[in-house]
């Protein structure tokens, strides 16, 4: 405890919170990616009537650690014709929004690094850099598959961001705040998912598209584009893209938990259990992630024009209509 006191005295309470928080976030990101990669392989295997990783550790749980060591020890190949500076910048830039977004996610009532009054906005503002990194990486690779993947990623992300923000807007109107903790507090009686199920559905679909996961994984469609924007990346640079993808899954699921599934609050009717809030939060988040994996291994990939038509002709009109209807309803209620 003495060392802790020294740290607080040295840095001051605010800085301590940020430093400790960021260290915690870095740890969480790594552990989460290790776990999710393992989970994804297991889920995929069982859906396809296989067993999945089973050799390293019980149930193969140590498999991703071994994979990680392999990735760290691999050579970083920089192909000759790439744009060197941007090629190296992209894997770093893809990681920036991940670190920033975790700052405002309320894991429990107290466990939040900084409860900003514009927290939700922060996450969406910084998610831009993710797209940017994909773009820069794809372009700098100087490879037609990478470029095609990057162009698809941007077209898709720009399109799906619109219905995403529109549905989030209805939640914000209902809770009357952009502050994550207040959005959770506004769901103390009814979770938003029961009160606006359409918004929750649109959010989950768009979130799947924003994280470039199947059935929306055309930016890295293996059968057409090799690996899309990260075709030319090897070793730890590739691993950073991978890490960012799984962290983004955690972020969108955590935001969904906060916006629609009552955040750190208990499941309805289970409030008497002595379970701390963060366990509820992670339980809900990982259930959502499991659903995303389930969807990924169940549905085939969309074609690009189907994807765009689905967004512009169905999602955006429905999201707009939803916003207008709920604006009216909320006005009448109040």
């Amino acid at each position, binding site marked *: 405890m003495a060392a802790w006191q020294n740290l607080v005295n040295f840095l001051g309470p605010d800085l301590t919170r940020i430093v400790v928080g960021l260290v915690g976030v870095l740890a969480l990101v790594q552990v989460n990616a290790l776990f999710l990669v393992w989970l994804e392989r297991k889920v995929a295997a069982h859906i396809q009537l296989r067993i999945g990783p089973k050799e390293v550790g019980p149930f193969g749980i140590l498999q991703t650690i071994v994979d990680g060591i392999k990735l760290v020890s691999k050579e970083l190949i920089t192909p000759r014709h790439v*744009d060197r500076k941007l090629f190296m910048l992209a894997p770093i830039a893809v990681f920036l929004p991940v670190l920033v977004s975790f700052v405002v996610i309320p894991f429990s009532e107290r466990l939040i690094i900084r409860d900003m009054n*514009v927290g939700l906005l*922060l996450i*969406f*503002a910084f*998610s*831009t850099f993710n797209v940017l990194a994909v773009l820069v990486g794809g*372009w700098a690779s100087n490879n037609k598959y990478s470029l095609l993947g990057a*162009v698809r990623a*941007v077209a898709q992300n720009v399109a799906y961001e619109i219905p995403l923000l529109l549905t989030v807007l209805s939640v914000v109107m209902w809770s009357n705040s952009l502050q994550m903790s207040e959005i959770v507090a506004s769901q103390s009686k009814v979770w938003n998912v029961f009160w606006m199920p359409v918004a929750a559905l649109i959010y989950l679909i768009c979130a799947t598209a924003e994280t470039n996961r199947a059935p929306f994984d055309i930016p890295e469609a293996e059968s057409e584009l090799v690996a899309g924007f990260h075709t030319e990346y090897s070793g730890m640079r590739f691993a950073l893209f991978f890490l960012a993808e799984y962290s983004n899954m955690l972020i969108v699921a955590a935001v969904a938990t906060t916006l629609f599934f009552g955040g750190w609050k208990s499941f309805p009717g289970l409030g008497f259990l002595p379970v701390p809030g963060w366990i509820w939060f992670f339980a809900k988040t990982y259930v959502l992630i499991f659903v995303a994996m389930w969807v990924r291994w169940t549905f085939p990939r969309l074609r690009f024009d189907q994807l765009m038509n689905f967004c512009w002709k169905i999602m955006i009109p429905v999201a707009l209509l939803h916003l207008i209807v709920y604006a009216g309803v909320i006005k009448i209620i109040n």
Partner: protein
Amino acid sequence: MNSVQSLIQPHVLAQIGFAGVVALILAGALIAVFPRSILYNVLGLIVCLTGVAGIFVYLGSPFIALMELLIYVGAICISIIFAIMLSRPLHLSLPKRRLPKVGLALGVGTAVFIMLSAIISRTEWQPAAMRSSDWSVTTLGTYLLTRYDLVFEVISLVLLVAILGAIIISGYARRSTS
């Protein structure tokens, strides 16, 4: 130890942050103008606008800062990049800089700079704290929909014109190719 501690005082940190943000803006602006690769130029613009968002944070309005990121970096710069990504493969040689073009750009840039600095130096600036103590998101929203209603609408008009323009241009392109 003490020297580090004196560095992490809030006001010193704020100064360092401000200097960093200004450096970011200037570096971004330079990258936006000088390199010959147009993708670098846009990335410079992004760095510059991120720095401007940093200025808003420094001025105590994280809301405006995040809107700046969301709109200028997230929407505008990404769509610029999207347009230029399809324009030029990396291995083609770059066209030369033409002197008249550079001169014109320099002239226009200087004129805008002189005009802006003249306006800035002639205006009597009142600190925001003197005009009002309430700059919350709610107040800003109320202002936008009451006092600055017209400006707000005119901005949407600009966007509408841009959308129509894009539709017309792509429509022509399609008709001429098919």
